[in-house]
């Protein structure tokens, strides 16, 4: 019986990698906000620091009601705030979102009356380019 439990544990443990990503094409063309985890060499003014946090729960272990993933964090929260600040982009971005393993999500379904807490946090430095040049990209290495 114990061996069976161990086998089950090993089976559930195998191949449990959670991957989340967001597609965020960033070109400093003045039309949209660029985002990079590094720095830029182009002359710029620093408008300030920013941290956005969106918290919520996963209903039944899977249903993300308010959107607490990278997609929502970047596109629905960070970018609008940067536009509000008058920024052209965000540099030195750091981010983290809650990631549950498939096993935890299954438990969330079984114990549906206890929603799983979830959040995404993004920090960065908002900048405004002094000479917006459509030919340059934020990732340009000089």
């Amino acid at each position, binding site marked *: 019986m114990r061996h069976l439990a161990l086998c089950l544990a090993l089976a559930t443990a195998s191949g449990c990698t959670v991957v989340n990503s*967001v597609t965020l094409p960033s070109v400093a063309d003045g039309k949209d906000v660029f985002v990079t985890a590094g720095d830029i060499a182009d002359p710029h003014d620093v408008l300030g620091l920013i941290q956005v946090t969106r918290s919520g729960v996963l209903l039944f272990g899977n249903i993300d009601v308010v959107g607490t993933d990278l997609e929502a964090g970047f596109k629905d929260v960070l970018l609008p705030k940067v536009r509000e600040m008058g920024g052209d982009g965000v540099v030195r971005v750091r981010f983290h979102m809650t*990631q549950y393993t498939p096993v935890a999500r299954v438990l969330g379904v079984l114990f549906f009356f206890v929603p799983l807490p979830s959040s995404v946090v993004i920090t960065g430095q908002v900048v405004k380019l002094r000479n917006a040049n459509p030919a340059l990209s934020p*990732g340009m290495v000089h």
Partner: protein
Amino acid sequence: MKRLALLFLVASALTGCNAVSKGSRLSNRPMDSGGVYLTTGDAPKRFRTVGFVQVRGYGVEVAGYADVGDAQLDGTIKGAMVREALRLNGHGVIHIEFEDENPSSDVERAQGLANSFSNLSTGKGGVETKDRYVSATGEVIQFLE
């Protein structure tokens, strides 16, 4: 009293044990040809950002020594993160940040092994297991040249 002192000494000696998690090397600079470029720093040449990725590998440490699952730095960064970068049509991942969330020190591993033997020999409980997590984030890029 002597036993207590000995216990205290042993406990003191065990306190502050290091837990070291290792991963194999990432990409060289200047970059080698082929493969997805991986670095904890900046890109070696001009690029544009494609997106961002976060990976969390889960595994189980069995009896203090056997690691089962995906909670290793190499599997998380060179496996899942690279696959996601390729899915996004990326050429590389830069500014990679990683963390082994709950590494075991040598003492904890030995303790896990000892407890497992003890449990099995006495018939009380089974093999000791510990959930393990490794997470990593990075910026997916495409080179412009």
